[in-house]
């Protein structure tokens, strides 16, 4: 029984980071209908940024989020403006963007491999090695911090979307791009901003992952597989869906990992993706219409 609860704790701790990883991707899809297959590559990029800052200036990866998040925000704004802004009306936009973002992921992977080589990296702040014990249970300090920060950021994003003028405009654009234009929302501007916010979330996720996991340039492939499954399971473009599926799958994968072995835990994600496609292609919280 203790074991069962312990696994649940670890699963939930990881679920927070997964939710942060998938929230940015789902936001970008929701507003722009772009399946950003480079999302995890941007996360890896941010992890390397945190790693670089940690190695060179010895700045804690949590502290350096104040740097990685704005940098990734800017990267997002420039990337969207440069490649996508003028093409949003193209009827083949969805297909094109999937491939373009995937190609972007390859470019990022190649550049990172060229600069940092393929060696496994991680940042090693002091809390990366200790655990907190409470009664018979424990949680690695790094995962606890990652969970707390992820939740703070996600709640922050939710409040921003709910209670600010710009947040409302983002939600409006997600629900009906045409109508948003009609009431005077500048959707191009909102899209650019959303892409920036999405990548800022990726930046935060990268910083946190840099001390939770080891990473290498090609790591983005495994991560994008996972994030995609979370986003599809939750329903493309649904923030709540991404959140729920993150905690659900993280916990499920933790149990599978314990009972069947580590090799099977990624398979949990892919199998759940195909199961949801089989029984509810629009995802848990998605809408029937899908582009």
């Amino acid at each position: 029984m203790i074991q069962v609860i312990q696994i649940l704790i670890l699963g939930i701790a990881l679920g927070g980071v997964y939710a942060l990883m998938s929230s940015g991707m789902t936001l970008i899809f929701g507003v722009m209908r772009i399946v950003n297959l480079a999302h995890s590559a941007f996360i890896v990029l941010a992890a390397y940024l945190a790693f670089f800052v940690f190695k060179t200036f010895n700045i804690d990866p949590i502290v350096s989020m104040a740097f990685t998040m704005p940098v990734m925000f800017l990267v997002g704004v420039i990337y969207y403006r440069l490649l996508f802004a003028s093409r949003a009306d193209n009827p083949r936009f969805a297909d094109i963007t999937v491939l373009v973002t995937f190609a972007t992921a390859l470019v990022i992977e190649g550049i990172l491999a060229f600069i940092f080589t393929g060696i496994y990296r991680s940042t090693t702040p002091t809390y990366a090695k200790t655990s907190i014990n409470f009664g018979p249970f424990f949680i690695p300090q790094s995962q606890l911090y990652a969970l707390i920060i992820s939740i703070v950021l996600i709640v922050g994003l939710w409040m921003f979307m709910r209670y600010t003028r710009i947040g409302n405009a983002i939600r409006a654009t997600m629900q009906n791009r045409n109508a948003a234009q009609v009431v005077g929302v500048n959707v191009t501007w909102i899209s650019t901003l959303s892409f920036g916010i999405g990548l800022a979330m990726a930046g935060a996720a990268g910083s946190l992952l840099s001390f939770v996991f080891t990473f290498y340039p090609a790591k983005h492939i495994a991560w994008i597989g996972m994030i995609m499954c979370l986003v599809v399971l939750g329903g493309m473009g649904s923030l709540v869906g991404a959140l729920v599926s993150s905690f659900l799958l993280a916990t499920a994968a933790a149990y599978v990992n314990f009972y069947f072995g580590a090799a099977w835990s990624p398979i949990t994600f892919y199998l759940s993706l195909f199961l949801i496609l089989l029984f509810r292609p629009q995802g848990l919280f998605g809408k029937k219409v899908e582009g």
Partner: protein
Amino acid sequence: MGTLVVENVVAGYGSGPNILKGLSLTVESGKAYCIIGPNGAGKSTLIKVIAGLLKPREGKIFFKGEDITPLRADQVLQRGLCYVPSDRSLFPDMTVKENLRMGGFVMRDTRKVDERIDELFAQFPILKEKSSQMAKTLSGGQQQLAAIARAMVLKPEMIMLDEPSLGLSPKVVQQIFGTITTLRDQGLTILLVEQNARKGLQIADMGVVLDLGTNSFEAPACDVLNDPRIQELYLGKRHQAVAAEECK
């Protein structure tokens, strides 16, 4: 000098052909105009161009003497020119009230927006009743009403309605046109695009017939309604059965 002047506008989508081919139109303040014409004549395109959602390839648009051709959609709204699209275009997962709030998006003063919403709720009690329901749960007629109210949040001087009767039952259409008549009587300038030409012309002061991207005919609505050519083409009447249409 009309309140809205469209001058030789040429427009189309993407790299496609011209849909409007040098269209000119003058809208007098405080009057209701009904634009009729066959499918593909460019009725909706004209409205989108005026609303600033589609940039014309040639030509100019003036509103109250100001050249609004280069303005963005939000700037056009701020000048007091609002638009209700044919698909209502509500935000499905927002409440009716939130939808109306979005109608006041270009106004910075949220208190004023809320005041306006209260006024509109007084005018449309059904919306007040449904104010905390998601827009997607409304009936077609209620959605149309909400879309009109959303445009009215900005207290516009002129409102453009694209096919307000689309997909509604005759009884509901009657109600919606009643609402439009009320707006007209309040002194709003109205530009109405309607497939249901008879209904549209009945409540309009002026009728405009669009054909193949140009303005082919413009006259008092009553004359348009009773013009035998129009009757045959758009009202589905044969020559011999001409009975005078009742109009305003």
